């Protein structure tokens, strides 16, 4: 197994998380409910971490959290090497007219976000969708999608692979990049 190159250390990772949480607090009026939807599975983890920080900073923030699975909306499910297993969608609020903050770990081609937006809009007429991602691979986009809140921007080749690691899953919070010939996708 090849080791990837670290592009965000555990220390910086936490600073970045903190900044993103602050940006959310800053942009949402304190009396407004913040609707946060994480994309299964890694977006959910990021969203949960951000909510933890926001709850720590504000006394009693009004946050409604949902999980979105986009398996049935993907356009690549029949051409992927590895099949995808459907996860559950848990959105227990009415999305009609709401401003929703969509959260995912890596913004790459934009296809996942495109599918997520379609999936969200199938639940009702959403008022507005904002996007937050930990990593933005800005030169690898296939669709005109950009994120409103970005953790770190990464300039990489199409063949490279970026992985966000999480303390409770991988031992440490960090972001790694694997080059084209030694990528270790999982």
């Amino acid at each position, binding site marked *: 197994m090849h080791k990837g190159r670290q592009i965000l250390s555990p220390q910086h990772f936490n600073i970045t998380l903190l900044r993103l949480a602050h940006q959310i607090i800053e942009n949402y009026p304190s009396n407004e409910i913040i609707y946060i939807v994480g994309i299964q599975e890694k977006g959910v983890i990021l969203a949960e971490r951000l909510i933890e920080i926001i709850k720590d900073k504000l006394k009693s923030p009004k946050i409604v959290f949902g999980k979105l*699975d986009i*398996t*049935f*909306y*993907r356009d690549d*499910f*029949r*051409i992927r090497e*590895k*099949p*995808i*297993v*459907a*996860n*559950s*969608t848990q959105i227990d609020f009415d999305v009609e007219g709401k401003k929703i903050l969509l959260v995912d770990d890596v913004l790459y081609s934009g296809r996942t976000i495109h599918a997520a937006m*379609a*999936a969200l809009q*199938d*639940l*009702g007429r959403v008022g507005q969708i904002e996007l937050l991602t930990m990593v933005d691979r800005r030169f690898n986009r296939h669709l005109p999608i950009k994120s409103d809140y970005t953790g770190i921007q990464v300039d990489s080749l199409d063949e490279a692979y970026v992985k966000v690691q999480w303390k409770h899953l991988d031992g440490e919070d960090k972001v790694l990049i694997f080059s084209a010939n030694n990528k270790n996708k999982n």
Partner: protein
Amino acid sequence: MSEGKLSTKHLLGIKYINSDDINLIFSTAEQFKDVINRPIKKVPSLRDVTIANLFFENSTRTKLSFELAEKRLSADVVNFSSSTSSVKKGETLLDTVNNILSMKVDMVVMRHPAPGAHYFLSNHIDANIINAGDGTHEHPTQALLDAFSMREQLGNLRGKKICIFGDVLHSRVALSNIYCLQKLGAKVRVCGPPTLIPKYIGKLGVESSYNVEESLQWCDVANILRIQLERQDIKYIPSLREYAMYYGINKKLLDKLDKKIVIMHPGPINRGVEISSDVADSEHSIILQQVENGVAIRMAVLFLLASQRSIIH
């Protein structure tokens, strides 16, 4: 572990799939059940897939259920029924299907009166084939939705006791149910008049009984089958009235039990014959849940078969 992929390209019967496949279909169906209970009951997964529903035998429920499942997955659907087709003019099965496939169809859902018709076809064509019933042989999606519905009621089916009542001899649902339930670790028994219990059923590891009352007491779930008069070329029972008297499940029988059991029926039901109205409409009965689960299970089967790469040429 199945890792999100079925072990087979076709669903010809439960006999040909394993318990990992069954559990994968169930976990996917749970997500689809969520989808079909939303305001917008549709997902775009199969928008580039064309599915032909070939029904060489009559069907209401299964055909409707498959068609709804296909439409809710955004597939293009073409329907065919033998009563209005060139089959009547003497065309062979293979010719009929090849003609339809020339119109670029990716998947075939077929019901056919001949047992093994699907297996034969799978050796000759590229499209994914789903068996929607072949004669008295198998009806895999019905067995899957039955087991899925039982699981919703009882949790894990390992060690649970399921009794299939009625015309087991002519039932494709019975055979698929037996395979499916055994693969999930359940104990299966069949109960009916001696003439309607197949002679060698014991070879499948299934108990048989002619005593309805005792079998009801034994089981956690009673899956009641219809008497298939249309498949009976000779008289197997003296009369429907006599059958209803000795083998029909009624409220009186259920009231005698010291426990609550789940009542199921694959439909169409003959009220007053194999099941009385007060049982079919009672709180024990999950007949309508079965129908709802049927759409979710069929969506899962179609989705999982379509996600196999072989469909991309």
